[in-house]
């Protein structure tokens, strides 16, 4: 092969540290798997699994509506209400945060940088922990869930809003300034129309997430459908678990469809 040719095409050398990375990965997995006790399943696991599946396929339809309350519909409504209110609260509160964190609004980099840091700090806080704290403040119930979602969503929404603000075209603001408009008028006529569809889009997106979060807040007593679900699980009332799961899946699917439809129309 090399006999007649003066030019030899060499295979490019690969990164010599590649195998180090592979070894590190293997060690990581060995460490991870060795620490997990994969033995000691409950012998009843298979049987319970079958009961749950049976429960899902023969749900407790009577639970959908009970005249005396505490039924599926009311639980779902509560969940929905928590997520709507939580989303609205955060969508309003995060606006000043977004302008604080947007690079093109503040004159100095450290101002927007600090805003971004605050937002990412809020974001790292799990909402369920926030709910635990709010339960201490306002007592167990839906309102604690609302506050937890409302505060927690600021982190993500503020970040997304800030990205939207950073993407605006400064031209219209300049044109408004040239025509003698003051700061507020520039904001209202040049910035707001540009960011509003994006804000609404992200708010709906966050709403979809919040509905999911709100279904689990009940696990710690912050309202919604999670409370009866945990109760049904611990009392092994599988048909009821089935109907609640079904209810959650149907509600979230419908909300995703509606929200997705509106979002598609916005863009």
């Amino acid at each position, binding site marked *: 092969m090399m006999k007649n040719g003066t030019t030899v095409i060499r295979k490019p050398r690969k990164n010599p540290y590649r195998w180090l990375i592979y070894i590190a990965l293997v060690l990581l997995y060995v460490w991870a798997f060795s620490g997990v006790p994969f033995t000691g399943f409950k012998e009843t696991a298979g049987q319970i699994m079958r009961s749950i599946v049976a429960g899902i396929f023969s749900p407790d339809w009577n639970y959908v509506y009970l005249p005396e309350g505490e039924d599926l519909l009311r639980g779902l409504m509560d969940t929905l209400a928590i997520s709507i209110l939580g989303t609205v609260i955060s969508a309003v509160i995060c606006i000043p945060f977004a302008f604080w964190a947007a690079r093109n609004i503040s004159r100095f980099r450290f101002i927007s940088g600090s805003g971004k840091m605050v937002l990412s700090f809020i974001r790292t806080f799990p909402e369920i922990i926030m709910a635990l704290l709010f339960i201490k403040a306002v007592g167990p119930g839906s309102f604690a869930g609302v506050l937890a979602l409302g505060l927690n969503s600021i982190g993500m929404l503020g970040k997304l809003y800030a990205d939207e603000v950073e993407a605006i*075209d400064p*031209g*219209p603001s*300049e*044109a*408004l*300034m*040239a*025509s*003698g*408009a*003051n700061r*507020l*008028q520039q904001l*209202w*006529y*040049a910035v707001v*129309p*540009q960011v*509003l*569809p994006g804000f609404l889009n992200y708010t709906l997106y966050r709403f979809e997430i919040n509905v999911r979060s709100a279904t689990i807040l009940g696990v710690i007593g912050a309202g919604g459908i999670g409370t009866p679900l945990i109760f049904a699980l611990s009392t092994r009332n599988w048909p009821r678990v089935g109907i609640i799961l079904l209810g959650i899946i149907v509600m979230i699917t419908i909300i995703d469809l509606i929200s997705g439809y509106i979002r598609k129309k916005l863009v």
Partner: protein
Amino acid sequence: MIELHNVSKVYPNNTKGLNNINLRFDKGEFVAVVGLSGAGKSTLLRSINRLHDISEGEILIEGKSITAAKGKALRLIRRDIGMIFQSFNLVKRSSVLRNVLAGRVGYHSTLRTLLGRFPKSDIELAFEALERVNISEKAYTRADQLSGGQQQRVAIARVLAQEAKIILADEPVASLDPLTTKQVMDDLKRINSELGITMIVNLHFIDLAREYATRIVGLRAGEVVFDGPVSEATDERFAEIYGRPIQQDELLGEVTTA
């Protein structure tokens, strides 16, 4: 009337944008500002309505110093100076009418404009302005659905609705094709002659400058190197402004005479 007295502008990185400029523009003039890119054309225009602050000297608009003006006073002076941009600077998602009405916000209280309650006379004014540039049938269309030439005409309508006495146009036709270029320049010329609005236009194409302007100002490295009527702006003088002979891409070509 616009007067520039000893105006200089130094950028933070120490490059000189404008160097000791003295100019006077009278009411009703159609002035074309020409020069290479980077010669300071845009800086000059943006200094007049103080989108850029100048480092030295003073600029007077109708005898009032815009250089010293602050807050409300500055906004009142700016209200009389319309500006047209190369990239149109419309709010793309808003309707044409709303974009034109945005030119009126300087006339009303903040609260009133935030509520969007423009008086009927403003809306009539906006429609008149749109008719003047032949685009009134698009009033309720979203701005991003118009072509570039149409968008620039909306921007002109915005300035008309603003009832500006002076119009600054910063490369108004640079992003347009030759045919729409002619339409937009015709609009500007008509507005200048019919309404007597002072027009100061930055232009890249020197044949356009010759055809439409009554007076040409040539800039080179932030200094005025030519100021006179079109008749004096011969090819030789242009070569001096540019520091080299005229090149083909500085001529728009035949369309303007069509």
